[in-house]
């Protein structure tokens, strides 16, 4: 296996809310705090926007760990988006365990805009934890999507629709084509 030629570097996808954790990551940056470069931050408006599908899609597309960062309880810009994130995370965490995905691969942290040092610490901890767990290495995934399309029988007058095999993409569908294991 070629991947054994060089040491494993975990790939961690981080979903940070724009109001607290992403701002904290910015603070860590302008404060020149160094932390593991393994974390790829994705800015969302709120941790409550983290659809469990995003977490699974990250794993499917090659992430070894997923970190979610939001405002401390009570500080949410949208009242309780972070609490909804917590509710989903607690159930998702349990479900991933049954999928054979170790608990250390997902983490939810409350990080306020002032806590640049916490971003540094959490990213470092998460990286080391996932490094110890090793690559997730999912089996290459299904080649097709769950199923496109919408149109109830009878409602489709779309005789001049796209040619076979080129069905138009419904809005908001992620490509889920499996990436080859590294």
């Amino acid at each position, binding site marked *: 296996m070629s991947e054994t030629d060089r040491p494993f570097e975990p790939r961690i996808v981080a979903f940070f809310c724009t109001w607290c954790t992403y701002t904290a990551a910015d603070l860590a940056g302008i404060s020149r705090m160094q932390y593991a470069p393994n974390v790829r931050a994705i800015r969302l408006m709120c941790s409550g926007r983290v*659809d*469990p*599908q995003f*977490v*699974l*899609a990250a*794993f*499917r597309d090659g992430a070894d760990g997923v970190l979610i960062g939001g405002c401390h*309880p009570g500080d949410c810009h949208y009242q*309780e988006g972070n*609490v*909804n994130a*917590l*509710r*989903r995370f*607690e*159930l*998702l965490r*349990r*479900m991933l365990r*049954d*999928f*054979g*995905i170790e608990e250390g691969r997902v983490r939810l942290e409350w990080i306020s805009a002032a806590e640049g040092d916490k971003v540094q610490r959490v990213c470092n901890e998460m990286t080391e934890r996932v490094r110890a767990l*090793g*690559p*997730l*290495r*999912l*089996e*290459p*995934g*299904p080649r*097709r*999507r*769950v*199923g*496109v*399309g*919408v*149109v*109830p*029988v*009878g*409602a*489709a007058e*779309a005789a001049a*629709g*796209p040619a*076979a*095999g080129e*069905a*138009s993409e*419904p*809005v*908001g*569908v*992620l490509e*889920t084509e*499996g990436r080859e294991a590294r």
Partner: protein
Amino acid sequence: MTKPKVAFYWCASCGGCEEAVVDLAEDVLAVVDAVDIAFWPVALDFKVSDVEALADGELAASFVNGAIRTSEQREMAELLRRKSAVVVAFGACAWLGGIPGLANLSSRESILEFVYRGSPSTSDGDGVRPQEETDVPEGRLRLPHFDETVRTLDQVVDVDYYLPGCPPPVDLIRSAVTALVEGRLPEKGSVLAPDVALCAECPRAQTKPTDLKVTQFRRPHEVIADPETCLLAQGLVCLGPATRSGCGAPCTAANMPCTGCMGPTSRVIDYGAKALSAIASLVAPSDEEAVGEAVDRLVDPVGTFYRYSLPASLLHRRVERDAAGSRGGGQGWARRS
């Protein structure tokens, strides 16, 4: 005018989908009037060689139910694909993997080990497992290969349409067959059902609170549910909010929560993740410990949220780690023929 030829076939399934065709009752006569059934192993005595003898594309449509687990199912799916103008994934198993797809929580090896050695009803015997080839005095016997993983029909062959449900509701079968005969099929890839959530047609919809919160989840055997109030409001895990409608809500009408057999709507990629999201968001407590206690009452989250859709999910199957620490369910995908 020659009638269009159609085929019905089953793969990894229970036979309920075949029953659903029979449930068309007298309407099945209209179907027989309109089409020529060229292959239907459950009901009619045609052989595989009869299908092989057809010209490519000669079948107007094949309705294939069941997931794909064995080489035989794969070969039949490929044969019917070649012979058919239109392939319809018929029912939850063909579309999403269905109940047989839950086998993706176990490895092939652990399934064989349990069935042929471990299960309480198996005598230890000589530990013999079925072989793909066995030589006997009369010649060589062959059995299909048992794949590493369960796949949906469209993970094996190109599929034109999907009929959801476990089994598909008679109304949807009827309108799909009618649309086929009349040549007014929708865009390829369509799911032949309405594209809104089940709550839209649930008789209890009026009693669903606008700000629905659940303090304690209950399982159906733990409570005698009120027959008119929204089941979620009673703490039962009803997957209606995440599930496609079109079934007429017979389960909720019969005081049982929706288990999601109609699959997702078109805006959803991964049914289980969305269903999980819908249910988790209803949890009333907001501090970590109490949320944990509330969701701990949901036993078997994978079996609950992916009951009909594990092979179609983003993760596809449980991650197995062998003794050497390497991962993956083996050669499941590499073994495509």
